[in-house]
């Protein structure tokens, strides 16, 4: 029993830190609330869809940035997609970079776009790692026979 409580506390602390550091926002809680017995892996499924989609979009952005002449419209369309999905799952820091990125696209500022792409890669990697860690911790709690506390 102690083990479960300890694991749950660790998970809680970790999750709280993700909100505190701005990796996740309230929208992520909405997703967690949607999960139920009929679809117990809903959050993981959506997040993994987000990972796949983000990697595809980041790769597209890199391609577009390397082409001459630069197609800012195309870039903006990709960033808009990423902004949408990051907002939908509550990946706040990624969303913020996307907002800045769109501004640079509008200004046709190549340097700004390049910087944002780098920032995007960083923030995406960070949130991916954080979420994967959180999922691992959830698995540990469940494996020990406990349930996931809803923050």
């Amino acid at each position, binding site marked *: 029993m102690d083990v479960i409580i300890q694991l749950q506390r660790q998970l809680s602390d970790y999750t709280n830190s993700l909100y505190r550091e701005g990796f996740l926002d309230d*929208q992520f809680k909405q997703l967690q609330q949607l999960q139920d017995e009929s679809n117990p892996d809903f959050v993981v499924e959506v997040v993994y869809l987000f990972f796949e989609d983000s990697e595809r979009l980041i790769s597209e952005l890199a391609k577009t940035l390397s082409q001459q002449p630069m197609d800012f419209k195309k870039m903006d369309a990709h960033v808009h997609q990423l902004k*949408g999905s990051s907002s939908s799952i509550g990946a706040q820091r990624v969303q913020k970079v996307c907002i800045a990125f769109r501004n640079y696209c509008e200004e046709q500022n190549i340097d700004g776009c390049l910087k944002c792409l780098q920032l995007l890669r960083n923030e995406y990697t960070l949130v991916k790692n954080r979420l994967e860690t959180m999922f691992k911790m959830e698995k540990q709690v469940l494996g020990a026979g406990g349930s996931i506390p809803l923050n």
Partner: protein
Amino acid sequence: MDDSSSGCSHSSKKKSTMADDDRKELHVLAVDDNIIDRKIVEKLLISSSCKVTTAENGIRALEYLGNLGVHSESQTPALHQDDAIPTAAGDLKVNLIITDYCMPEMTGYELLKKIKESSILKDIPVIVMSSENIPTRIHKCLEEGAQMFMLKPLKHSDVTRLRCQLMQCRS
């Protein structure tokens, strides 16, 4: 579930209830080009006791709407083989369309227009969603006959609000 190779997919609550409940159950067609948003909207609606069909763009949505109530053997429903064959026009009737605004090729606004211009489809309420809060955009959609305009990302409370409004309209 939603399969990227087809344009539409069906989902509903596991427990399918008797005729009475089915009549009250809303069948919603959700249109969004973003796969994550499609999955979330679908779950939001299912959690609110709706039957959901998703479409990845306006063209697929119109194809689906155009195929409802078609019984002739020569015409097959667009793109989905594993769906139930409509046994009665009322069976798969769509009670609500919820669509994203920003979509390539056909925007949500253009889809809305096409629906309102159709003598068969014009009475189906359409809700437009967007991640951008642009008053002229909202006004344009409402002018064109959209029931509601909602800001993304959608929350559970938005779907509750949506249902309330819709139920009021129906009664």
